């Protein structure tokens, strides 16, 4: 089938304003949107810039907005969008555009770093592994699926209005260490996100949960953090 794409273009070196450029691509229904973007770039217009790497939803590079919804271009198939043409592809909203579909993710990674994404354990470690109850470990099953693609933050209505809001993915990473029974800084981690711009910034819009390409129950996880704050700190 032949698809029509409208792709957001902006080169701050040369353009005063962003624009949308139309391309037509033939593709099979089961091909990825990423395949279409590549075909455009390889066969029609090499000036189109976007990030990509693994091509199957593991690295998180090719997060973009497709027909208004944030997603990984390698996880959406042609048949998913064929009904809604032209297919509009835009950069993730809420982030500064560096060129075309490439956005500045520095502020995003800074927030992830802010939650201290590493185990703060006791310096004394056993000779072998630390034992961990499989049921306790299971609590992390969902959150360790996060690939830091930033779809959630880009879709969050709170983050769109308040740039100080920590945002869904960083809170998911906070969860990952708060509920790791091996971590020794649980209380301090909870205190750190017990703020209006931390866990309490979330207003349960559920947009993050809807768009998460790894199907992490993001909003629910944030609410679990809130409950834990009430339980432990109050």
């Amino acid at each position, binding site marked *: 089938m032949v698809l029509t794409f409208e792709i957001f273009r902006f080169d701050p070196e040369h353009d005063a304003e962003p624009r949308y450029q139309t391309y037509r691509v033939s593709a099979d229904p089961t091909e990825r949107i990423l395949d279409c973007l590549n075909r455009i770039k390889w066969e029609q217009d*090499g*000036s189109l810039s976007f990030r*990509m790497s693994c091509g*199957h939803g593991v690295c998180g590079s090719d997060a973009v907005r497709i027909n208004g919804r944030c997603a990984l271009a390698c996880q959406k198939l042609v048949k998913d969008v064929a009904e809604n043409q032209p297919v509009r592809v835009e950069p993730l909203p809420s982030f500064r555009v560096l060129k075309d579909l490439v956005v500045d993710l520095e502020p995003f990674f800074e927030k992830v770093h802010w939650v201290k994404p590493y185990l703060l354990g006791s310096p004394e470690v056993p000779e072998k592994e630390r034992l961990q*109850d499989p049921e306790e470990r299971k609590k992390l099953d969902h959150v360790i699926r996060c690939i830091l693609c930033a779809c959630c933050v880009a879709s969050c209505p709170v983050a769109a209005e308040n740039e100080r809001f920590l945002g869904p993915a960083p809170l998911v990473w906070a969860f990952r260490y708060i509920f*790791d029974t091996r971590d020794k800084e649980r209380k301090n981690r909870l205190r750190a996100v017990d703020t209006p711009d931390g866990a309490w910034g979330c207003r349960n819009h559920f947009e993050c949960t809807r768009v998460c390409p790894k199907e992490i129950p993001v909003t629910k996880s944030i609410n679990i953090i809130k409950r834990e704050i009430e339980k432990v700190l109050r």
Partner: protein
Amino acid sequence: MSEKHTHDVVIVGSGLAGLRAAVETAGRLDVALISKVFPTRSHSGAAQGGIAAALGNEEPDSWEWHMFDTVKGGDYLTDQDAAEVLTRDAVRAVYELEHMGVPFNRNPNGTIAQRAFGGHTRNFGEAPVKRACYAADRTGRVILDTLYGQCVQRGIHVYPELSVVDLLVRDGVVCGVVALDWATGALHVFHAKAVMLATGGFGKVFKTTSNCFANTGDGAALVFRHGFPLQDMEFVQFHPTGIYGLGVLISEAARGEGGILRNRLGERFMERYAPTIKDLAARDVVSRAIMSEIRAGRGIDGRDFVYLDLTHLGKERLAERLSDISSFVRIYLGIDPAEAPIPVQPTCHYMMGGIPTDVDGRALDVQGRPIAGLYAAGECACVSVHGANRLGCNSLLDLVVFGRRAGRHMAAQVPSMDLTPLPSQAEAPVRERMEKIKERTTGVRPAVLRERMQQEMMERCGVYRTREGLDKALETVRGLQEECRRNVFLDYRGERYNTDLMEALELESLLTLAEVILVSAASRRESRGAHSREDYPDRDDQNFLHHSLVYRDGDKIGVAAKPVSITRFEPKPRVY
């Protein structure tokens, strides 16, 4: 104009090998970590099944069994002194990862859970053993995230989205790299006492691959261009179970958990090829078995794929231990693996060959002497612990064991080393290369040449090879190189995120490596491990029980032999 940076050490690549080395040197050396992608996007994160270590949490196990399996898996081309280092250190390495915070799956008693994997056996080949430590089917990803966190905690200086485009060598001493910053288009010159390459594999040489787009082997190609050798490049692993058509990996863990390969007739055909461990034979054996079934007309509907059957594992087990691959199958094929079998075919997965190193990560020249200032670890390196065929779960292990050892060696040696002055006009050759490409307004797009190379390599240098096919492919690849030099042009000449230029430069790396693979493959007139010559179907220990070195010698390409270290296990016929 270029920016200049000086560090004690520059590590190129932010997968597990690069990150592990950085962690080891943190606080002792001033380290810069350069990466083509954000560190968490590195391809180590795509590793699914596990990391091998004889913890013995599930059943008795020993590092000697693990060493034997590694040597036999490599069809006796594995350097046994290196395999001993790898497997002896494995247990410590996994405990260390646990201490750093890797969320391994657990047993009811709280210990790290382990499962069976291809080629890993108890008591020197008797039966499969549970040796793979895992976190669902995201083991690489969680180790990557954990090591990234360790680097954040230690304040490692990361330069993301910079591609290394040249190695700086003065009088045989490596003293830095030139890198291109994708955000700005600027060249950066990094001056360092030591450079460590951890640039990963180059599966993108082939059409069907589980590898990411970034896996173009830039580090290995640069080493070769500067006249240093590459080792065992003919050994390319085709993983038996790539999703049909796409090449996306279905982890061997699927068979470790009990999955079965079936042909058109519904037969469990691996019983015929590997009577003892069946579907859990080494990857080269299983890939050849699949190709043989397809050639005999027993592919599904007579086509070029077979089925991987997981339907008997049950929804719960798939959700708990194989959730990512279940979701890949659902997304890309519209199949629920609990209900229907998965169409699979071999996919290019891993390069056993690469930059020759010793067990401390020091890169070696043709004579086997360390190259001053150059280290390498991970898939771009060849220690060689994988020999002619790598076992599943040994790659993550290789990355953390030899990444750490390289880091440790640098931390010990670099403080007493001097900065070698940079060559004059360090970035001039790269700038000239780039300008030549940017100058042209007509010609051929990089993607066209890349596709032709990938097609040719897949067809003539895949699971099975012949002299005739390799010669033909070599002619094609050399033609493409020439066309690349003379004719490649870009649509975009701007500076920011010029991925058009990136792909043109990567194509140069890929074509360089394709040629090396072909030369190496043509020179090995035997079948061993992943290198299967139809015109020489048997292993020939008399003439070929040695590593191959391929290097540039003026305008020619030289091939040399290098002895294999054999300490504990004398070569025997390889039967599973």
